[in-house]
């Protein structure tokens, strides 16, 4: 590591940008275009049209989620998402529900750590109505005190369900320890105490701070006429959503802390373990190489039928030595950081071997990544990325998320160019930066009495030379 300072950063970006787009087949170049319009006040409207379609998805993507909250109002973004469906000054809860159901549409919402999303799936002719309804529930939610009180129990009940889902629970624990003391370490639902005590004022305040024109994207896919969409959005949102820009809400920077959180229940039958290194932000030059690494490490499930016949070396070893019931590699990106790691479900007596093979396969990427596995992973990654765009709701989601994270939508040609540009040396370089001799964060739940301690795993984040 000492030689780091001596290296001169020869930027070789030119070679990538020079890659000729002519080498791509026509379907890559002639993919449907994403139209983007910024309205007065900063509200962005982005859409992709599928000709001949009779249905569309329209969504509002807001650059706000649980990480922008404070310890006092943690849970507000999610609470607000619930309240949006409880009536406006124009519609009661029941009127809203009946209206959507009668028109054969769907209305839903979700909150993540960095984004809040409301979307509607409707017929072509109902797109203007969908925009009107989305505007109504977002900008004119009644936030009735009695309804807020009723909703507390619903959210606490949802919390029980979330906590039953070990995968979600372990990712909460992982964020809590990896980003301890910062906004990104808080949960989306917030602590029970906040769910019981958040007031109408807290929610109102959250809207005023975050639901601003410059932090919102209206995204559409399917049977959409971009011009008409812009007009309707202008009519519905234009004068009602506060234009921003004056004071940007300060985001608490994420600070990664190498640490672990262990919740031991020796009587459970399966241990859940997530091991992660600090990853890259959405826009980092390492974002795509990390996706390739994620694909190389892969995922495996005992019930998937592939058995030991899996391309991933980690998968082969886990299958061969029966180290786990399942594992998956994750690569979560945020505005200024990320989490790259593996989540495994395993029997208690295999945990030490599992961690040995897991770390050794991750560090192997630094030194021994092969050309063959990089080539295979690149093709797989392209397929996975395209596969996710099946259906208007998925496309609208992709547009909204990219507009918020990248500020634009990457063309398929750019995605292919970025993936094609990655070679084995890039993967090794990325692994060297993010894994080699780095602190890790770990969360574990269940019968974890035999899970190695922090130093055992930390020691295995690099190899020795003999």
């Amino acid at each position, binding site marked *: *590591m*000492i030689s780091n300072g001596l290296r001169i950063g020869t930027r070789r*970006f030119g070679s*990538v*940008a020079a890659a000729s*787009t002519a080498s791509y*087949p026509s*379907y890559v*170049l*002639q*993919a*449907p*275009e994403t139209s983007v319009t910024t309205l007065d006040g900063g509200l962005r409207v982005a859409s992709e049209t*599928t000709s*001949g379609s*009779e*249905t569309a998805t329209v969504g509002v993507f807001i650059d706000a989620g649980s990480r922008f909250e404070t310890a006092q109002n943690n849970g507000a973004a999610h609470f607000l998402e619930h309240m949006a469906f409880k009536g406006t000054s124009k519609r009661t809860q029941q009127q809203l529900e009946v209206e*959507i*159901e009668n028109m*054969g549409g*769907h*209305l*839903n919402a979700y909150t993540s750590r960095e984004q809040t999303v409301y979307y509607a*799936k409707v017929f072509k002719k109902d797109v203007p109505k969908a925009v009107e309804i989305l505007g109504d529930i977002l900008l004119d939610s009644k936030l009735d005190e009695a309804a807020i009180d009723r909703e507390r129990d619903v959210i606490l009940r949802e919390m029980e369900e979330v906590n039953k889902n070990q995968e979600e629970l372990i990712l909460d624990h992982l964020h809590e320890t990896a980003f301890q003391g910062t906004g990104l370490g808080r949960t989306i639902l917030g602590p029970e105490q906040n769910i019981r005590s958040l007031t109408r004022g807290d929610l109102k305040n959250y809207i005023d701070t975050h639901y601003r024109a410059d932090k919102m994207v209206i995204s559409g896919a399917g049977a959409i006429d971009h011009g008409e969409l812009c007009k309707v959005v202008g009519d519905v949102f234009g004068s009602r959503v506060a234009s921003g820009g004056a004071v940007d809400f300060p985001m608490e920077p994420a600070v990664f802390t190498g640490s672990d959180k262990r919740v031991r229940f020796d009587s459970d039958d399966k241990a859940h373990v997530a091991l992660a290194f600090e990853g890259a932000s*959405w826009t980092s*030059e390492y974002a795509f190489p990390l996706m390739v690494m994620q694909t190389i490490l892969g995922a495996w499930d005992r019930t998937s*039928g*592939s*058995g*030991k*016949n899996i391309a991933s070396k980690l998968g082969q070893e886990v299958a061969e030595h029966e180290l786990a019931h399942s594992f998956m590699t994750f690569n979560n990106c945020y505005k200024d950081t990320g989490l790259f790691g593996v989540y495994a479900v395993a029997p208690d007596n295999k945990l030490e071997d599992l961690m040995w093979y897991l770390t050794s396969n991750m560090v192997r990427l630094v030194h021994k990544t092969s050309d063959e596995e990089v*080539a*295979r992973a690149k*093709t*797989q990654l392209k397929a996975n990325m*395209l*596969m996710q765009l*099946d*259906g*208007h*709701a998925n496309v609208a989601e992709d547009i909204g998320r990219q507009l918020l994270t990248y500020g634009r939508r*990457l*063309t*398929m*040609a*750019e995605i292919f*160019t970025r993936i094609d*540009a*990655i070679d084995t040396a890039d993967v*090794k*370089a*990325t*692994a*060297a930066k993010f894994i080699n*001799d780095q602190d890790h964060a770990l969360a574990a739940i269940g019968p974890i009495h035999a899970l190695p301690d922090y130093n*055992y795993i930390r*020691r295995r984040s*690099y*190899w*020795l030379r003999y």
Partner: protein
Amino acid sequence: MKNDKDDGDKDSHKDSDKLQPPETEIKQPPITLSPLVSIASQASPTAAEVETTYISGLCVSSVEKAGGMTSVGICVGAGSKFETSGLDRGSNHAFELLCMKDTETMTSSDIISRLDGLGAGVAALSSRDQFMITCDSLRDNAEGACGIMVDCLLRGKFSDTDLDDCRQVMHWINSEMGGVEWVKEGMMGAAFGDTPLGNPHFCPLEDIAGINGDMMRGWRDRFLTRENMVVGGAGIEHARLVDMVGRMLEEVPNGEVPTCGESVYTGGEFRMVEPNNMDGLTRVAVGFEVGSWHDDDLVPTCVLQTLLGGGDSFSAGGPGKGMYSRLYREVLNRCYWAEAAEAYTIIHNDGGVIGIAGASVPNKSQDLTVVFLEQFAKLTVVPVSDEELSRAKNMIRGNILTQLESRQVLSEDIIRQMQTYGSREHPSVVCEKIDRVTKEDIMRIARRAMSKPPSISAVGPDLTYVPKFEQISHLRGASE
């Protein structure tokens, strides 16, 4: 204490002891507001129509669809309704499970690594009267992926090891199947008794040992004929698909379309005690006869299912999931003990069932069954309201069209319709048929359904409170 250098957990190593990592510089820039590559012009492709070609009796049907992925599938007119106990019971399910195993030309691990390298995936699914194998791949690699799919279908090796694995998996599936799956599996046996549609689909435990390689090869000889198969796809030029599969399936012979006996709805019961189920709930389904895929009342039957709707008492999701459907308003919102109540249809080429499936604590099973039967009886007497009929029509139209946005669903829809009808109905035609459904249609279907005894299927830790078939077999709705 081990003195191995590798276990020196106490102190971190000196940097000079560590294997030096490579440089951390990479060749691409961060993602900024300016695009990395510029494209002269992007043109949105226009919508295409489904095209069909017959290659010496083999139907190939596909539609072009914008995007970088291709879906191709093959549907075979085969299923558990053709099986005979003691002869080939379980062969359809076994063939599905053996699909990705060794073939004459590739080992199973070859198949998986080649598919990965092509950005492709292959999946197989058997049912009572159709067997489907599909592949999705990057558009450029459709040919390679399709070749592997065809190899899996035509040239399985059925080695002893693979057959052993398959039998083990069948045992495992049998033990892992939950109440929801068993209730559905049992319903067909209850409804169609000993006739072909009443055959079990999941191989019964006592028949698993009989699964062998000859049975699998026999399956191929019997069902894989040009007349009994349909190839289809979405996201591919038709001419390219025709050319590809023409070559790949050249060896498939012409032949008769296999037949089986007539399926007759009898009504009956299925009961399975499941002592240690996870949630302690008993699952009950009632079912009635409806027409097949070829029945004139198919569309109104599906509208009726949507109108009844329902779901789980704690299901997630916002408006649009059917929260104002009958079963939500009249069952889930009123009966605190109803944990689930959802209308279903199971429709095949020679018969079908419509019904309601749900769950409750065991001592409320009788109430749940009675409520379900009452819901049907009511449909035979009281016309549905204009509002709920219109809501159901919009909802089913929305669901169909939203589903068909997906390339995979579109491909499968084309293939299954070609296999079932020999032609494909455009979604707009289906939507027109939905428009024409009247409240009289709904009542007629309900009355026809209730003109024969109901079927009942129940799975749970305690079935004491589930009515016996003899107790409900006399029930009939109002008649015309």
